Every structure is written in C-alpha cells, then in structure tokens.
C-alpha cells in the first residue's frame, strides 16, 4: 500500500510512513525537552535508530523536519483541546478545562511550557512558513475557545454585547503567558493565577 507524504507529495510505503512518523514524533519529544535549537539531526537519528539516508529520504533539511514537528504538535494539541473544550458550555466546564491544563503542567513543574507555544517562541522569528502554520494552529485553538464562549452567550450566561472572538484571544494570551511564566519560574503557580484571573474577568461579564 502506498501513502502520500502531505509535505513533499511523495509517495510512501506504509513502512516508510511509519518511519517518517517515528522520526517526527521523536523529534517533537526531543525539541519539547531540549528546545528546537538544541536538538540536532544526530540527536533524532540516535533516538530513532534511523540512518542519515532514511532521514534525508523523508526530509530535505532540518527546517523541513521542524515544520513537520510543528504540524504534528499542532494536531496533537488541537485534538486534545477539541476533546476537552468540545462539550464545554458552562463556566464550571471552563474551570475544569483550566484544572486539567494546570495539573498536567504541574507534573513537570512547568518546566517545558506549552508544546505549541514553546515551538512558536523558538521558530516564529526564523522560519516564515513555520510561523504561518503556527498562526493557523493558534487561530484554530482560539476558535475552540470562542465556540465555548459563544455557547455561554447563547445560554444567556455571557452578555450578548461581549465580543467572544476578542475575549477568546485574550484568554489564549493569558494561557500562553501563564505557561511562559511557569516555565521561567519552574513553578506552575503563575500559570494557575493568570488563567484564574482571566476566567474571573469572563465571569465578571456574565449576564446575571
């Protein structure tokens, strides 16, 4: 069976697709822990047991690998967020969403930040293709938050005059900033505080 590589358009065998996926997943993990700049192709090859020829069969360059990692991490994060936000239609549900993110980050003492935010921080200034892909991914994530706020508005919980898109964007900013503060301080507390304060602001806009 042959598959098509979504990035290069080249045809891959099922085995080739598995090799490519393994390289991308391993690179994503290494870049999350060590950072993008500090992760070399040799690191990835060592972690996957792949050869250089296998690597360059799938990726023209290290930049191509980074873009594939952006795509992979983005889809993983969005799948998680669709699962956790998809049925949220109450403020309590939004607080449970917050609890899950803070708890997950607390397990690592905030050490690595948001997987998508950390990538954005490192690559946006150097790779315009990656920046545009990240912009689209964050827009989709923000859209999920806006959908929650729209449901709150439809249920009469949030005032009708509130701009849900703008509020969702602000909440996303507080979330990403919270992750970054937690990463710098190796302590999840500022992340918890910033999301709590942002949610308190949303609650202050309630219709009742």
């Amino acid at each position: 069976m042959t598959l098509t590589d979504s990035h290069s358009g080249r045809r891959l065998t099922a085995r080739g697709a598995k090799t490519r996926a393994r390289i991308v997943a391993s690179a994503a993990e290494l870049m999350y822990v060590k950072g993008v700049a500090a992760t070399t192709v040799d690191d990835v090859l060592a972690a996957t047991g792949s050869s250089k020829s296998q690597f360059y069969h799938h990726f023209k360059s290290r930049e191509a690998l980074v873009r594939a990692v952006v795509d992979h991490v983005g889809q993983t994060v969005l799948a998680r967020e669709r699962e956790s936000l998809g049925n949220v239609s109450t403020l309590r549900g939004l607080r449970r969403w917050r609890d899950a993110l803070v708890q997950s980050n607390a397990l690592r003492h905030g050490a690595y930040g948001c997987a998508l935010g950390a990538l954005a921080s490192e690559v946006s200034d150097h790779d315009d293709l990656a920046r545009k892909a990240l912009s689209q991914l964050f827009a989709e994530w923000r859209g999920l938050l806006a959908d929650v706020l729209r449901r709150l508005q439809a249920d009469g919980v949030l005032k009708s005059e509130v701009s849900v898109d703008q509020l969702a964007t602000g909440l996303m900013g507080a979330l990403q900033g919270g992750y970054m503060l937690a990463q710098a301080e190796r302590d999840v507390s500022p992340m918890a505080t910033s999301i709590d304060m942002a949610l308190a602001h949303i609650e202050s806009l309630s219709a009742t």
Partner: protein
Amino acid sequence: MTTHFVDVLAIEDAALAQVTNREDMTRWRRRVVRELMRPQSRYATALRRVPDSAAGRDFLVTWQGLLTAAVERVLSSENPPEVRSAAGRRHHDRRAADELAVLILAALHGGGLLSRVADDPAPLEAALDIALAPLTTPSARRGSCPADERPGGNMNR
C-alpha cells in the same frame, strides 16, 4: 543579568513609578505595546530570552514587583483610606495587586508571542484588555489608540 533585562527594568522602574491612576496606566500600556510590536526592541528581545535564561526568572520577579506597586497605587487612587469600605479594603489587598501583576506579565508575554506569530497587535491588545480591565480607562481598549501612538507609526528605532 543580561543587558536587555537590565535596560527594560531600568525603563520600567522609572515609567511605572509615575503610574498613579488609570490615565497613567493607559499611557504605560500604549508605550509597552509599541515597544513589544517592534521585533528588535529591547522589550521584545528581553521577553524572547526569558525562557532560555537563568536571569529570566529574576527579570520577571523584579518586573512583577514594579507592576504590583503600580497596581496598588492605581487601586488606592480610587479607594482612599477614609472612604474605604470592606470591598475597598479587599481592593487594597496586596495579594490582589500581585495577582493582577502576574496577569499583566502573562498578557505581555503570551499576547506578545501570539502577536509575533500572527504579525498582528490584536492578540496582545486583547490579552491586555483582560489584564488591565480594572486599571485602565475604557478608551484604552484596542482600536481607540490615537493614530500617532499605534504600533508602526512614529517610532524611534
């Protein structure tokens, strides 16, 4: 501490010391947004370096302290001691000022990152709208910035 951290803290120390009311906080906001939207500014460079640097934590802690003091002054200006109610006393709670300072810092970092990625000041403005809601005038909201203060206009590089 790296040069960019030292430079930004020196500017913020002087600037935030002058923030005593909502109008002052609104002016502070406009200036910081202008700085953050210039990719090579000391502010943008400093925030990019925070996660990578051991000095980043000290930078954040110091800036948060300056913000907390400014927030306390702004809140005090609206709830002078002689007319302070129980709710007013809560406003003056140091912890509340600290929490607002954390949210402001988060908005600058997170909103700033999203704005860099989108190449658009809107996410930074939206994040600051939330963080500064208790502390700025309604005209400080996104879209009501005077033309000569908008990012991209009349800036010194």
